[in-house]
């Protein structure tokens, strides 16, 4: 399982990459592996406003449909249209295939995200 050093993580297995005020969000390698082959991504809509912890969209695999939770408060400024035709990109390159990007409203929320080390520990604990 790969965990990228420079990303931030959530307990619900999303990753966050910050570029200035814009936060790119996807799901972790661990998440894609436990979901199995992904067949459908329901993207959020541009302009959607979400609060931290809201259900942002869903990812469907051959095993199950899973909610993706917004790690931050903000509005959607970008969605990854490529996933509509090729959802398997998430399986192939989980850290390149972002799902959507938010303009983060509250910088203070960033503190609640996990760093790579903390996320690795979380995954190990869950495996217990």
């Amino acid at each position: 399982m790969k965990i990228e050093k420079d990303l931030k993580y959530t307990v619900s297995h999303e990753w966050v990459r910050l570029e200035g005020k814009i936060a790119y969000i996807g799901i972790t390698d661990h998440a894609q592996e436990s979901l199995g082959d992904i067949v459908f991504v329901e993207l959020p809509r541009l302009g959607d406003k979400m609060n931290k912890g809201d259900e942002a969209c869903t990812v469907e695999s051959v095993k199950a449909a899973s909610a993706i939770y917004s790690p931050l408060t903000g509005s959607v400024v970008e969605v990854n249209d490529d996933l509509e035709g090729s959802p398997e990109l998430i399986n192939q390159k989980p850290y390149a295939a972002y799902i959507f990007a938010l303009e983060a409203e509250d910088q203070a929320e960033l503190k609640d995200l996990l760093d790579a080390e903390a996320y690795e520990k979380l995954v190990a604990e869950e495996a217990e």
Partner: protein
Amino acid sequence: MKDTLIFEESREGRRGFTLPAAGISGGAKEDFLPKAYRRSTPAALPELSEVEVVRHFTGLSMKNYGIDLGFYPLGSCTMKYNPKVNEDVVLLPGFAELHPLQTAETAQGTLELLHGLITDLCGITGMRWGTLQPFAGAHGEFTAMKLFRAYFDHRKDDHRKKILIPDSAHGTNPASAHLAGFQVVELPSDPEGYVDLEALEEHLDDTLAGIMLTNPNTLGRFEKDIRLIARKIHQAGGLLYYDGANMNAILGHARPGDMGFDAVHLNIHKTFSTPHGGGGPGSGPVLVGESLEPYLPVPDIRRDGDTFRWASEHRPRSIGRVSGFYGNIAVLLRAVCYLRMMGSEGLKAAGTLAVLNANYLKRHLTSLFDSPDKSLCKHEFVLSAKTWKEKHGITALDIAKALLDRGIHPPTIYFPLTVPEALMIEPTETESRETLDSFVDTLKDILTTAKKDPEALHRAPEKMPVSRIDEVRAAKTPILRWRKER
């Protein structure tokens, strides 16, 4: 055996049967059937001889696998044997030739049996009345969620939108609640797999509509705090819904009504021994307590003295129909037969034996796999192939496919989602000790192969008409119907 569709076997002009001339004289075609109702081109039916049709369907039936052929430990599905007497009864002309538009006066026998069935199911679940209309468990869930909605709407409590559902629940639960207009909130399980009471506490506010639970839960464990949970939900103004998929475990021993549930669905095709899966349509009656009774679907079946009739006038607050007519009546009649053959003692024994068989298997299999818990289970249990995956690269899917080659239907895999590499095993009460032992031996044999020759398992199944299916393509771009090449 070749895998062709009957359309592909068609040869122009070939016939199995030649219709004689109509022998009705006088008048043009138009006199018999107006032009607007006649087709302009002939129907694209396959053209084959009789023996070709017979071979085609016999060939298909030989590819099928069912409980009549062997062991079928599909967790959460209760694939018990369906006694043949059920079929005899439902094929009696008085039942088989019923028409849904027949008047109630001419179907008194059937109405009486259905009325009796609701009464019996209420007795089994501890509920007051119900409806037999829903066509499946998921349809029953949806019906019950509509009842919740109607209850809150009537009380002008329409801000109550939140339905709690444990993370181990079946996917149909959140789907049904969502479809009925509720917001689904996932409840985490505690480390032992039970409802996490602390997490529950956080949601007990005035937006709470209720909770959907199955008990025993999908790990095959009985929620021992169910009465406490029911009290808390009710105190917060919410309702409790019981997913009856796991009812087989507690038949004759415990009743959802006594646990505090307000609504229950039963899977007739699981617990009450009617064909399940490809073998036949399902049925998912909903039974309710006092609070939800006024909202039950119409028509209802009522008894006036010795006669039975369809009735709607006593339910002004009904959610309406949930089925075009009155559900899958031929399936329900099979269940009536099963209940009469079993009697209440027999049903209780079925529950007991289902639990005994599951524990027998669990005891013999726990040491071979990772097991979320080692305690006694109810009618089913979940194992994890996590260590097999890590050490030998053998997944739950590989084990399932290897079972196919060995003549056994695999258990449910990758459900519940809370257990990695899950194998969910439910033997049911109808299996003998010899069958259970032979299943244990087969799994041991597969695991020996996993150590010696894991590649062999990755190749499985090798004896089936098709090997591994491209699940991604099947989900993304399914081919759902045959099209004539142009």
